[in-house]
């Protein structure tokens, strides 16, 4: 039997507010346990939550970015359950009336574009952490994270493969970091993915029974976990078994998923509207001012790069995978001239990207700036530098040796464009390579390239390749 995979994702994004969603405590990561836990965070008797407007603003930004409905009135509910790192005995979340509903996000897998629907996104507070080591059989509780603002983004079950799920998660990660509502740091848990996975025979309309894989904190684990889970579900069904609704955990060590709790153990969370918080009423003019301040979104920018600069889908997608890279690109293009956009793209995809990867740096920390790259591009465009020489100049720029012209001067990289001088070298090369000349005349096109190579070598790479080509052709009577 042929099987179809159905995947929906729930992504918890930590919002970039400096203080918590219902208290004034800092949200900074990595502080000593319980040093960022106020009376409100530890739920002392009598304390009350006060909503952080910054969290609401970020949720609205997200809603605008995915073309969603922004509920002008939305409501906080209490989700009740007992756990030591949940100080109030309930989590403040949004169930019936979330702030965001009905959005969508486009993904691209193997050149195929697909729209993934976003069911809803709601604000909620994070819990603290239980520390099971170092306490001699007891559990330590760290409430620094308690009350950190989260936006939980829930998709429809619109993905049909782990590749699509990863593409969606990446696109979402790209978007939330792009609009600045989440720092996207997956190691620190700022972007956590739960995957709801089921399989069904191809052609069947109803969904199969799903299992939810919790807390995947890398795209690789997301892919591995789904792939394992899908194989497991298909094998189970083909062996005549049944998949039972459950929550499972992925073990990166073994690459397997294992059951955490079945549906029977599911909590009754006894949701009800939190009487300590009034319904959130959003002012139209506030939404409009947020809309006005929105940056151009990656998808729009990608399409613009293709349209205006003639970039390929691949280049345009790659350059808009990160806001900083996109800004670097547009800044460089505006300095080097729009006609050089393709060349700028090539350099960013090539040397810039390779150097950044090697040194594990972000583009904002690179030694090269849009100004320097634009200068380099200009020297290529005006024929001062050949591609090969430009690479050497780039090395100089990366090493901080100064401006482009200074490096060309210091390294002696100026292209030889004096046709008399080139002709002289050509003559010498032809004289010394009679065998190649004969081969060329016998119809071997490759021999021509060998001769070009020899000329370039003799000129120490400085001869203008176009002129070399032209002169060689003339001399050989081709």
């Amino acid at each position, binding site marked *: 039997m042929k099987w179809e995979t159905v995947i929906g994702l729930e992504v918890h994004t930590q919002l970039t507010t400096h203080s918590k969603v219902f208290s004034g405590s800092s949200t900074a990561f990595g502080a000593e346990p319980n040093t960022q836990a106020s*009376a409100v965070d*530890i*739920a*002392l*008797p*009598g*304390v*009350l*939550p*006060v*909503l952080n407007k910054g969290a609401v603003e970020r949720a609205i930004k997200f809603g605008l970015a995915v073309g969603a409905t922004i509920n002008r009135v939305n409501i906080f509910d*209490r989700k*009740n359950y*007992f756990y*030591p790192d949940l*100080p*109030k*005995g*309930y989590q403040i979340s949004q169930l019936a009336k979330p702030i965001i509903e009905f959005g969508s996000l486009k993904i691209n897998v193997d050149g195929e574009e697909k729209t993934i629907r976003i069911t809803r996104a709601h604000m909620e507070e994070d819990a603290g952490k239980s520390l099971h080591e170092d306490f001699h059989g007891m559990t330590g*509780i760290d409430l620094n994270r308690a009350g950190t603002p989260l936006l939980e983004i829930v998709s429809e079950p619109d993905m049909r493969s782990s590749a699509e799920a990863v593409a969606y998660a990446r696109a979402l990660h790209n978007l939330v970091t792009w609009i600045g509502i989440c720092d996207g740091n997956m190691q620190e848990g700022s972007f956590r993915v739960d995957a709801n996975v089921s399989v069904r025979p191809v052609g069947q309309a109803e969904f199969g029974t799903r299992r939810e894989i919790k807390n995947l904190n890398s795209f690789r684990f997301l892919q591995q976990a789904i792939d394992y889970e899908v194989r497991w579900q298909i094998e189970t069904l083909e062996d005549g078994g049944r998949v039972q609704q459950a929550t499972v955990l992925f073990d990166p060590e073994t690459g397997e998923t294992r059951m955490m709790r079945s549906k029977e153990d599911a909590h*009754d969370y*006894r*949701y*009800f509207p939190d*009487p*300590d*918080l*009034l319904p959130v009423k959003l002012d139209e003019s506030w939404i409009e001012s947020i809309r006005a301040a929105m940056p151009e979104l990656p998808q729009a920018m990608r399409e613009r790069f293709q349209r205006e600069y003639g970039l390929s889908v691949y280049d345009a997608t790659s350059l808009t995978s990160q806001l900083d890279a996109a800004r670097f690109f547009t800044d460089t293009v505006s300095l080097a001239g729009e006609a050089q956009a393709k060349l700028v793209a090539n350099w960013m995809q090539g040397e810039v990207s390779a150097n950044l990867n090697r040194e594990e740096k972000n583009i904002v920390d690179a030694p090269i700036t849009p100004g320097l790259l634009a200068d380099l591009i200009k020297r290529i465009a005006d024929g001062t530098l050949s591609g090969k020489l430009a690479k050497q100049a780039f090395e100089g720029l990366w090493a901080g040796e100064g401006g482009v012209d200074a490096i060309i001067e210091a390294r002696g990289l100026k292209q030889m464009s004096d046709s008399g001088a080139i002709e002289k070298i050509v003559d010498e090369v032809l004289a010394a390579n009679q065998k190649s000349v004969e081969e060329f005349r016998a119809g071997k096109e490759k021999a021509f390239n060998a001769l070009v190579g020899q000329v370039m070598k003799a000129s120490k790479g400085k001869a203008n390749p176009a002129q070399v080509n032209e002169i060689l052709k003339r001399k050989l009577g081709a």
Partner: protein
Amino acid sequence: MINSSLKTLSAMLADKKISAVELAARYLDRIDALNPRLNAFITVDREKTLVEARAADARRAAGEDINMLGIPIAHKDIFCTDGWLTTCGSKMLGNFIAPYDATVISKFKQAGMVSLGKTNMDEFAMGSSNETSYFGPVKNPWDEAAVPGGSSGGSAAAVAARLAPAATGTDTGGSIRQPAALCGISGLKPTYGICSRYGMIAFASSLDQAGPMAPTAEDCALLMNVMAGFDERDSTSLEREKEDYTRDLDKPLAGLKIGLPKEFFFTEGLSAEVAQKIDGAIAEFKKLGAQMVEVSLPNMGLSVPVYYVLAPAEASSNLSRFDGVRYGHRTAEYRDLLDMYEKTRAEGFGAEVKRRIMIGTYVLSHGYYDAYYLQAQKIRRLIAADFAAAFKQCDVILGPTSPTPAFNAGEKASDPVAMYLSDIYTIAVNLAGLPGMSIPCGFSNDGRPIGVQLIGDLFSEARLLNAAHQYQLNTDWHTRIPEGLK
């Protein structure tokens, strides 16, 4: 002296006839002498009180002259009070020293009022007789066989016995007004959102409201001037212009339209003695120029069942934080986490609290939420609409505060429903978020106080205080002190 009004005490302090330390000491001596009988206070700390009194005297010596500076007050043990044991009447918080002040407490501190201690109360404010307190029942100063009412029974008894010239209370379903009535004092529950709930241990968040308890309406008005006001730490607190609650005290009542809801007077369980005293109060108000109009609150009969769905629902969630993990009681021995939770909560909570947690958990459960919680919310809106309609016909609604005078200790303790019905006249006011007040209007044949309730439209505290004050200028029920405690 112990029967002096806040206005008189304020004048004595201003004229330096007495210092804040001397005044506090007199009340502390009285507490030492009488509290062992009444059990109105859970915590008294002479030294802490005197530190506050000395600070008040220092402020006055430094030239500060604000009207409440140096006046003592007792606080219901539901308010977190920095450095004081704050128990909420429960074993669960029997060891909890609050590390911060409730907003209401800090407002009294800023005004220079001196805390005499923390008053006894029904556990987590759940009760109408003060019998559910872990720290033992409070006695009614008028008759020690009788309950003082609840849940602010300690505050009511302390004021009635003049162990304090004033006290704070909280009212979720009648917890200021009913004990005020049963102890023969005045008590005001303001409009929901007027006094900050920050630092007031939550019972039912959408109903809880702090308010003043004192011998007279005028005292209550002065206390409201201190304790009311917007607080950015309470999202349900209302941002309104500052009011002077004494501004209308002296207005004549001629032309005041008083609504008499027929449902208030034909309730099963309304005692003849109470009905008679309410009639007396109506006659008195008529003499003062008020007009009586009949009004109707058709859904009032549903208020008790609605309340006993909504209040326990919120309470079941509010009390989840008492889990033994971070503060308060934790059981001595346990096998695992679940065992720790179960034993801690089994030991830490009393029977009435457990009953309400169970009711609340049930009505919020999957499959019951729509039938109970949502339905109750709908009826709550109908009850509020009834009041809104009634206030188109009248300025103030009048009726009994409690269907009976104070009952005997133990009389209703084993019958929760009978106990719940003692709040039948007060609960609807909380459900509608309205201000309500109880003032003394007589005594039963066996000498137990009876209160009359005045209910106003939203934000009409000044009008209620005006009506109550004018009534008190022409009656003397509020000046009486139990024999033997003078």
